[in-house]
């Protein structure tokens, strides 16, 4: 989760303001939301992902399902695909997740009933970047209609995203091989500070005519972690198809949680629907993104000043909350045991844990780990 420079959780100022508005609004109550969620939330959430001028929105061929966080959105999408995509109850359709990926991706699709979860090449440890060729090869080899989980931006855990040009290559192969894009968008705005930039890949795929799912989370970019605010955006061929998809998703939602929680959705909907509040939110998001970007550049420059062996441009090339430092398990152990800096065995650090107060210490510790331990 995001942390301030004081190392504290941060409730966005705009969220506090909107919560107060909601509390003071006597016309509101705790009645059930519709099964698919708060209409104003759904429409605005999808609009944020696809863009105001999205051709899919104009052509009325998008649908939205309010879900419990990004996880809930992924699960509803996965359940639908297992029942209705590529035949009925097609548990055999391969689902591809990146190597590595968020560890819960696997479980979501397994519990939804898919029997064949595979990985596609993604992280190139040697060059500390994207293994584009490996990725494209895997897509070429994948059976037609396979489902690919793509990270819309700020890849978790590597922080390494394809460039627009690389996304174009990915889209071309997916189109030719008839592969289904299921985007996981957990960091829109939070990654670069720009909503449009962070949604570029999703929007490109839409402009290329793909039908796709996009699981959105508002946990990070609204700081609403525990309110479980998510949205599954469905882009279909036409309105008719989308209606049918939503109708089936309603049945899935009904047996999973009946209808979603209202508090978080109201906060997001109120914010996105008001130009004034939206602008405030944008500033709040940029505050978070800028702090992370600052920590990245500060960490990198310190490592380079220290002359730490290796190259450190990946710290600033990578984006989002996490960074694959390139530290090996032994070096990680050193960091944890000797320096009390906590990171994953994969070498992944959470950039939000860095503050102006601990930057020097962390940089020195990394320097020690790399020079002392091989």
């Amino acid at each position, binding site marked *: *989760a995001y942390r301030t420079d004081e190392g*504290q*959780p941060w*409730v966005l100022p705009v*969220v506090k303001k909107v*919560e*107060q508005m909601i*509390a003071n609004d006597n016309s509101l109550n*705790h*009645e*059930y*939301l519709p099964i698919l969620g708060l209409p104003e939330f759904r429409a605005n959430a999808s609009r944020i992902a696809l863009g105001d001028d999205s051709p899919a929105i104009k052509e009325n061929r998008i649908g939205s399902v309010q*879900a*419990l*966080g990004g*996880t*809930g959105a992924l*699960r509803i999408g996965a359940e639908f695909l297992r029942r209705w995509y590529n035949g009925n109850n097609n548990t055999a359709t391969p689902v591809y997740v990146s190597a590595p990926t968020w560890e*819960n991706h696997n*479980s*979501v699709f*397994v*519990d*939804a009933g898919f029997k064949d979860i595979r990985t596609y090449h993604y992280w190139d440890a040697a060059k500390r970047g994207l293994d584009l060729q490996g990725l494209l090869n895997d897509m070429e080899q994948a059976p037609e209609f396979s489902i690919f989980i793509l990270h819309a931006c700020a890849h978790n855990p590597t922080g390494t995203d394809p460039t627009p040009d690389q996304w174009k290559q990915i889209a071309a192969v997916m189109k030719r091989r008839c592969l289904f894009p299921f985007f996981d968008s957990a960091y829109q705005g939070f990654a670069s500070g720009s909503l449009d930039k962070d949604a570029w890949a999703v929007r490109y795929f839409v402009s290329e005519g793909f039908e796709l799912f996009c699981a959105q989370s508002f*946990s990070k970019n609204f*700081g*609403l*972690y*525990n*309110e*479980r605010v998510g949205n599954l955006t469905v882009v279909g061929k036409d309105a008719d198809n989308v209606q049918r998809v939503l109708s089936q998703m309603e*049945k*899935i939602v*009904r*047996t*999973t*949680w*009946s*209808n*979603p*929680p*209202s*508090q*978080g959705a109201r906060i997001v909907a109120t914010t996105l629907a008001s130009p004034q509040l939206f602008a405030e939110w944008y500033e709040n998001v940029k505050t978070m993104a800028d702090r992370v970007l600052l920590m990245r550049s500060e960490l990198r420059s310190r490592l380079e000043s220290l002359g730490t062996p290796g190259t450190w441009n990946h710290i600033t090339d990578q984006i989002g909350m996490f960074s694959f430092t390139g530290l090996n398990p032994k070096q990680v152990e050193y960091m944890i045991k000797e320096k009390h800096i906590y990171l994953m065995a994969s070498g992944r650090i959470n950039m939000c844990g860095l503050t102006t107060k601990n930057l020097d210490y962390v940089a020195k510790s990394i320097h020690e780990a790399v020079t002392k331990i091989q």
Partner: protein
Amino acid sequence: QAEAMIASKKMDKEYLPIGGLADFTRASAELALGENSEAFKSGRYVTVQGISGTGSLRIGANFLQRFFKAGRDVYLPKPSWGNHTPIFRDAGLQLQSYRYYDPRTCSLDFAGAMDDIARIPEKSIILLHACAHNPTGVDPRQEQWKELAATVKKRNLLVYFDMAYQGFASGDINRDAWAVRHFIEQGINVLLSQSYAKNMGLYGERAGAFTVICSDAEEAKRVESQLKILIRPMYSNPPLNGARIAATILNTPELRKEWLVEVKGMADRIIGMRTQLVSNLKKEGSSHNWQHITDQIGMFCFTGLKPDQVDRLTKEFSIYMTKDGRISVAGVTSGNVAYLAHAIHQVTK
């Protein structure tokens, strides 16, 4: 009031643990089991926060599908809440039923239920409505619950209680939880789903809990671990708002007292409407026996009206109910109860 208290604390929005807010789950278990419950005091239970009643039921259903290899069949009362069947089916279990509602008397077909339950294969799963049966409003009397418990125990059935109306049914939280507590006292380690949608009016906040009574605290820890593995790929962790409101109410003595009064208020209004409906029907001159309206309990009432009568009510009197003759007593007010009685009399005389 609880909302204001919470707002003043200015808490953060960090993720809850997978199993939910501890203050909430503990208070939920205590509310259901009773503070003097041996099962509660010994800690031989696990309670996880669920997405209201539906989510809690679903966690349990998935848990059974994954771990209860002895049985695949879930026995529901006939009729049951419409969503029970798809929930268990989607979880991968099979549905069966036992006789429950007697349309001839608009009350419990106790003999039929006992007969069917006595023949349910051992190690099957049986679902029971703890109170305020949905949709019929027909609950067993305590004596009948005792016999049900004995039979269920003899048949070695796994019991799953759905308690969506604790407090809301009779106005007394202990009375409404009597069946659940009795079964546990008889040594039946039940599964339990709770909802705070109705009794705290927290509908859209999705506050609920799923409990498993275990042999001991050790087993409870193991079960908890598996429940978390089921929950994480569904929605990672539950929503805070409703659970925090419910926990604040349950754990703050003055608020808890107020809540008990308020939930009794809701229950009393429903009970009052039932009484008024029957007395108004008598006033209309109806010769039918409408006792079942006051015998039944909770939000819903199986009036005994036939589909064609229901149709007439809708077309001629703009009164809306389901084809099975079920009305929502919550929709009856002192302002419309006379009109309702009049209409029902017209289509049944």
